[in-house]
């Protein structure tokens, strides 16, 4: 579909394209002044969190103008969804924001359930497992934020510690779902499979030592002169600025507004959990760091409560017209239908086979209409706008991605500041390009 935009020349090994910055010349010409230089940062740059491209106009070390260019990781997930059935959708959406896959899945599944009108039929155990997994995911996502931001500001030990602990959380995910990332674990109607006992043991271990580790991060960074100098009073955005730009999540809470959808418009059972919404009033990168640390502590509290109320029971809705027909199990060749189920449908029950075939290949029909389901993801409001035309496939699914919306704040944070603070400001937004570009 594209026209030629890169210069090409023929060589003995075939045609070679010279890929340029696209609008680079135009930007440089417009900048004009000799003292003003234009710096292109990204899309491949270690501290732009993936494939974010920043075009910065500088005078000396001061940023005069910052432009954000995105779209390098656009994979058309929303369009792809329209050609798969509703259950298969989870496999796609989990790949959007790859640091918070459970949130993508949970938001999507809650939207599908709202379209079907079956929210009150979701079992308690499934709801508890979802909250448990979401909060563990919030911890792992914040750990990556802490690790990468630490690395970008020169605190390399923080990077090692952050990824080490996150690895432990991913091990829990693997025990529960069979996969470390992109699990497609939350399904319309419940979750894919039950939590094994070993995972519970591992989660309890995490609850045992994680609070001390968070204290350790705080000891390591909060009093560190370099850390404070680099983050305090940097990339400030107040509540008015946040609301105008649509910024939610830790960035908004660091400015002083305790807006957390889990508290303000609870969903999925959060209203029954006891936790606080951490806020700061500084509105700078240091405040965001404090908010995220405290959010990890609150998440641990929620995980503890969720474990306590994890009563045995079904993890999938009782309605057989929606529930996946089999228990899934992890076998030697990966995740699949459990052997007992395969033996039953292949050897004993023709009706069960037909049911399985119809539900798996055709899927269930979702009554026509549209819903918007907002949830509190680690980066802010994750909203799922799902439209059904009454068929077995989504008619349209749109993700209101917090990374996408929050990245609009980069010019507001960077312009007038130093070049080095662009990194801090960008990092403090915690953008994930997979989610931003979808």
């Amino acid at each position, binding site marked *: *579909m*594209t*026209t030629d*935009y890169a210069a090409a020349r023929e060589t003995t090994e075939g045609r070679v394209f010279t890929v340029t910055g696209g*609008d680079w010349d135009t930007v440089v010409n417009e900048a004009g002044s000799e003292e003003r230089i234009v710096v292109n940062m990204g899309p491949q740059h270690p501290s732009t969190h993936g494939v974010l491209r920043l075009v910065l106009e500088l005078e000396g070390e001061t940023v005069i103008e910052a432009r954000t260019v*995105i*779209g390098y990781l*656009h994979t*058309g997930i*929303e*369009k*792809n969804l329209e*050609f798969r059935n509703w259950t298969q959708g989870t496999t796609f959406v989990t790949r959007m924001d790859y640091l918070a896959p459970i949130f993508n899945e949970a938001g999507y599944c809650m939207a599908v359930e*709202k*379209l*079907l*009108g079956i929210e009150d039929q979701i079992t308690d155990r499934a709801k508890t497992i979802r909250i448990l997994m979401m909060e563990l995911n919030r911890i792992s996502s914040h750990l990556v934020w802490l690790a990468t931001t630490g690395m970008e500001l020169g605190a390399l030990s923080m990077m090692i510690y952050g990824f080490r602990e996150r690895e432990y959380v991913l091990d829990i995910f693997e025990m529960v779902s069979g996969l470390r990332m992109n699990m497609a674990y939350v399904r319309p109607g419940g979750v894919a499979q039950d939590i094994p006992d070993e995972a519970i043991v591992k989660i309890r271990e995490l609850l045992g030592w994680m609070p001390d580790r968070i204290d350790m991060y705080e000891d390591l960074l909060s009093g560190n002169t370099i850390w404070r100098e680099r983050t305090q009073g940097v990339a400030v955005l107040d509540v008015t600025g946040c*609301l*105008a*730009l*649509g*910024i939610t999540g830790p960035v908004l809470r660091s400015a002083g*507004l305790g*807006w957390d959808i889990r508290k*303000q*418009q609870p969903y999925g059972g959060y209203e029954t959990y006891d936790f606080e919404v951490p806020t700061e009033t500084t509105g700078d990168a240091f405040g965001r760091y404090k908010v995220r640390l405290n959010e990890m502590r609150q998440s641990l509290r929620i995980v503890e409560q969720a474990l306590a109320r994890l009563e045995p029971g079904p993890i999938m809705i009782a309605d057989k*017209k929606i529930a996946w027909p089999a228990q899934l199990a992890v076998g030697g060749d990966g995740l699949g239908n459990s052997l007992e189920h395969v033996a039953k449908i292949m050897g004993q029950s023709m009706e069960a086979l*037909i049911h399985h075939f*119809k*539900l798996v*290949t*055709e*899927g*269930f*029909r*979702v*009554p*026509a*209409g*549209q*819903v*918007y389901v*907002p949830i509190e993801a680690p980066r802010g*409001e994750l*909203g799922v*706008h799902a*439209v059904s035309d*009454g*068929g*077995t496939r989504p*008619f*349209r699914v*749109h993700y*209101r991605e917090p990374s*996408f*919306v929050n*990245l*609009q704040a980069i010019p507001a944070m960077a312009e007038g500041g130093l070049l080095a603070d662009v990194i801090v400001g960008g990092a403090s937004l915690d953008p994930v390009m997979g989610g931003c*570009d*979808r």
Partner: protein
Amino acid sequence: MTEVEPVGATAQTPPSSGAGRGMFGVQGTGDTSGFGGLRRRRAVELDSPRPYGGDFDEVVDALEEAYASFNDAIERIVVDRGELTLHIVPEHIAKVCQALRDDPALRFELCSSVSGVDYLGSDGRRLHAVYHLTSMTFRRRIRLEAAVTVEDPHLPSVTQVYPTADWQERETYDMFGIVFDGHPNLTRILMPDDWEGFPQRKDYPLGGVPVEYKGAEIPPPDQRRSYQ
């Protein structure tokens, strides 16, 4: 003399390809199993009567008071699955947003999301821009919808009211070709600058995948054999 059907006329020939007709070329529901229960029926809500329930009446009343030409601006009001949708005449969308944001009884401070939906085959105005607004003061959410035609896909931009709509309107333009008049820089955002066409439209042609075997090609997803 009446026309007589010739004896041995060829039976109606099946289409040469079953592509796009469901698995095994089945028509209709394709349900031979007796398992028709997979279908859940529910009438589509097109225009809800008052009272809307919850605090939706309060919101609509407040908007009626705050926005002088309310009756010209609102096409219809739908309450479905506990969500309020106001269908707005396209020319009024920015002004309605202004009223929704500024009126003390409404206070929709945050524009959560702007996106599009292409209702191909519904009526002429198939491109819908959908806005989700949040009132943090009252903990409410509403949805605004404005429909335009493909031939004249123009809507006033709400970026003057909600600066956050900047990128979201660009994305909607990028994917659906809805032009937001008054937007400061309406260019493509996710697709490359020189891309042609609007990928999220329902009539956007999809590509197949060529296979290196005797010129075969995996058909585009909308033409593959599958249950539809």
